[in-house]
């Protein structure tokens, strides 16, 4: 597509990158077909092609972002389904990230919205603060219906009924492998996930140890920065990311690491992109190295010879998190692993569509998010599964909120099938499940 940036504008590396991306777009419109918001809203302004146009217009003309433009870019889930679909390999992620930063720098949001975004940025990435907030929300839940603001209401409604105690497994330490060591890996324990669900990290650690990994929880690593990054708050996100890079590099340069294992795919997509985020930064080389060994937990498990398991008589509906299937292009590994250990696997119709969770999206765009959630849950339930598995805490919360089918992380099932305990979500499930004979 033709662009009209001046040579002066192109001196800015961010603009140069966006120009490169815009030039590769041929406006063919394929992306509209797999964009969740376009499916729901049917206006091209709410499709990748439309947003690309809005961004192009804004950047080319150094325009102060207007309300319309901001509205439609805010509605983007960053699910990146468009990137899977795009035959010209347009890097929409970098483009929309740039636009978000541009909006954050050049647009003054209404007070309420600024406050909300500030709150989210100050709470979600910090497990202690988040835990406190969740407790508060739990108390506030009964009055949720009376809250006038839809977004605040969404927050209260999203808060889980049970808030787990802090897991000491998430503290900095080193777990020895159960068998001969095959890999030394760092586990990224995350931020919000730690507060919402401690079973996932516990299961991951058990599973990795069982398969011969020495598992390190490095000191100083925390939030990946994605939450603030997607709000366009580049400074905050870079601070968080830099902390991680330093923490991991010190381990990489110390005892050494074979991989940085991430079990929240939303974070994985961001960590894998650290190289780009720090391109113009003194940490560029380190960021590139970190990104180079960052893997989703399913990737490392596939390298570790998961044992074949007998048929468990249990049907798992696999929900593909967007950050996994589109952001990291990991589509088959989790399903292959589940099948290998003996689970039946089904996928819902339109598995490419986002569930509407998308980081803080369900809190900031509750109406669209709810529509996507309903679609996703009904397409999952149509497969009549015994359990739903996903590789991302955000999706798990979003889907779990609207279905009576138990929702677990893929690693919890893999852990169970190879000798770990039954996932707590299954123990509590109302519907009795067939016991896995191999585990008695």
């Amino acid at each position, binding site marked *: 597509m*033709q662009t009209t940036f001046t040579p002066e504008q192109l001196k800015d590396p961010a603009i140069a990158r966006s120009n490169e991306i815009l030039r590769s777009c*041929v406006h*063919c*419109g*394929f992306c*509209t077909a797999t964009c969740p918001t376009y499916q729901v809203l049917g206006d091209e302004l709410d499709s990748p092609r439309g947003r690309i146009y809005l961004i192009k217009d804004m950047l080319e003309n150094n325009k102060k972002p207007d309300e319309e433009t901001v509205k439609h870019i805010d509605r983007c889930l960053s699910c990146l389904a468009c990137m899977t679909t795009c*035959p010209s*390999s347009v890097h929409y992620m970098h483009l929309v990230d740039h636009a978000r930063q541009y909006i954050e720098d050049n647009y003054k949001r209404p007070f309420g919205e600024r406050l909300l975004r500030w709150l989210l940025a100050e709470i979600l990435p910090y497990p202690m603060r988040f835990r406190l907030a969740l407790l508060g929300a739990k108390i506030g839940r009964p009055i949720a219906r009376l809250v006038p603001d839809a977004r605040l209401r969404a927050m209260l409604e999203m808060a889980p009924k049970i808030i787990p105690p802090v897991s000491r497994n998430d503290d900095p330490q080193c777990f020895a492998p159960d068998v001969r060591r095959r890999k030394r890996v760092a586990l990224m324990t995350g931020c919000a996930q730690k507060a919402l669900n401690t079973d996932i990290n516990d299961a991951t650690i058990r599973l990795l140890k069982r398969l011969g990994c020495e598992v390190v929880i490095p000191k100083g690593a925390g939030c990946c920065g994605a939450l603030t990054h997607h709000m366009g708050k580049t400074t905050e996100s870079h601070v968080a990311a830099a902390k991680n890079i330093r923490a991991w590099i010190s381990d990489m340069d110390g005892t050494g690491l074979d991989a940085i294992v991430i079990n929240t795919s939303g974070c994985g997509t961001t960590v894998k992109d650290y190289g780009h985020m720090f391109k113009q930064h003194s940490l560029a080389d380190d960021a590139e190295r970190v990104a180079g060994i960052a893997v989703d937990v399913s990737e490392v498990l596939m390298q570790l010879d998961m044992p074949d398991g007998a048929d468990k008589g249990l049907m798992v509906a696999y929900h593909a998190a967007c950050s996994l299937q589109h952001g990291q292009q990991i589509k088959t590994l989790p399903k292959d692993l589940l099948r290998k250990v003996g689970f039946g696997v089904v996928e819902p119709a339109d598995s490419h569509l986002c569930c509407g969770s998308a980081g803080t999206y369900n809190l900031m765009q509750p109406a669209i998010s709810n529509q996507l959630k309903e679609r996703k849950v009904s397409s999952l339930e149509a497969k009549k599964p015994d359990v739903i598995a996903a590789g991302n805490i955000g999706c798990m919360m979003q889907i779990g909120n609207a279905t009576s089918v138990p929702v677990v992380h893929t690693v919890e099932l893999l852990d169970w099938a190879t000798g770990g305990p039954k996932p707590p979500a299954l123990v509590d499930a109302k519907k009795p499940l067939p016991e896995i004979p191999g585990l008695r």
Partner: protein
Amino acid sequence: MEMPAPNPDILARKSRLVERLQAVLPLESVVHDPSATRVYECDALTAYKCPPLMAVLPTTTEEVSAVLKICHQEGVPVVPRGAGTSLAGGALPTADCVILGVARMNEVIETDYPNRTIRVQTGRTNLSVTGAVEENGFFYAPDPSSQLACAIAGNIAMNSGGAHCLKYGVTTNNLLGVTMVMMNGDVVELGGSHLDAGGLDLLGLICGSEGQLGVVTEATLRILPKPEGARPVLMGFDSAEVAGACVSDIIKAGVLPVAIEYMDRLCIEATERFAKAGYPDCEALLIVEVEGSSEEIDEQLSVILAIARSHNPVELRESKSSEESAKIWLGRKSAFGAMGQINDYMCLDGTIPVSALPLVLRKIGELAEQYGLRVGNVFHAGDGNMHPLILFDANKPGDLELCEAMGADILRLCVEVGGCLTGEHGVGIEKRDLMSDQYGSADLEAQMAVKDVFDPAWLLNPAKVFPLAVSAPRRESLAKLV
């Protein structure tokens, strides 16, 4: 590309129009903010653009009728838009027009398996029509490469084809009935769920009329039972000529495949990066697909492969699995977009008699050299429908004009050898001024007479299909009336 000057009187009445349209449509269905209308300034042909006065997004036939009635009363041109995937600029706006987008009208109204039909709102995408019936073993046959995204509305407007038309025909052969809104807001039903509608074949006339005769809001389509199996074969050749000759021989042999597709080296390399289909390393690739049970496929392929072998292929490979077949087709269907990784392009759509393939491919090569532009060739070889993709640099002054001139030369060549300007993309804006190369003035006059009947004020999808000079007398006399 010359467009008629916008009517200042209409521009001046914008706010009144917005009000009138908002009154008959649901909330957030009228896009009129200048920063927002820009998104509708072009379709998949980006060389020409113009933001519309506004865009409306109705959800029912009644709303479409209300919109058209208002526009008719106000004398405002209307440009219907499906998914905006036209490569011919079929949905290019004028500055004084209302874009009527049907994207929100995407419901399945009825599926009828015993009678093998489906009725849909026309904003539904082509592939999701198949999506609605495939669990019951059926599919909708026309398969334009953009089928993931393109709307049935646009398919009807352009009489879209696709790779598998060789066996199943194009849109017009699979369309049984439509609900159409006339420019004055009247709603007419043409055809139904039976074959061969009564009276004149208005359905056939509507199909391919590029949104200039009416706005089709609902359509009854034929669905077909899915074949037991299908298997594509990759045939790599050293040269375009040899591949072309092989196509002719296959067709003559009497075993008609469901698809014969052609791709040259440039396209193979571009699509391979995206789809990773494992295409052979060759100058000219044919993808030949046959259908049936596994034994039926084997038998047909034995004939076809023997023909291919007689042309000394560099590689001959049958697909081994449905995943591999899916990748082979993903690669082929993404070919246009994939070229975007290399440069901007203009995609042509001329059709020629199959026998002229080798000659025309050679001449395109010569033209490319003469103009100093690169050309990728990817097309439906079985029916002679070519898609030369001329690469150019949209940011380089003069390059687009060069590309246009070369495109025109290629299309004239297609007409010269007994073919036509467009096989399935439509005339739109892109080939408008070449119409006189294919048709004489009486031929064009006959077509314009049809438009006079359906849209006497010439308000629907203005300035397309007919060269401006040819349609000028009509437009001028109408302007006087307004």
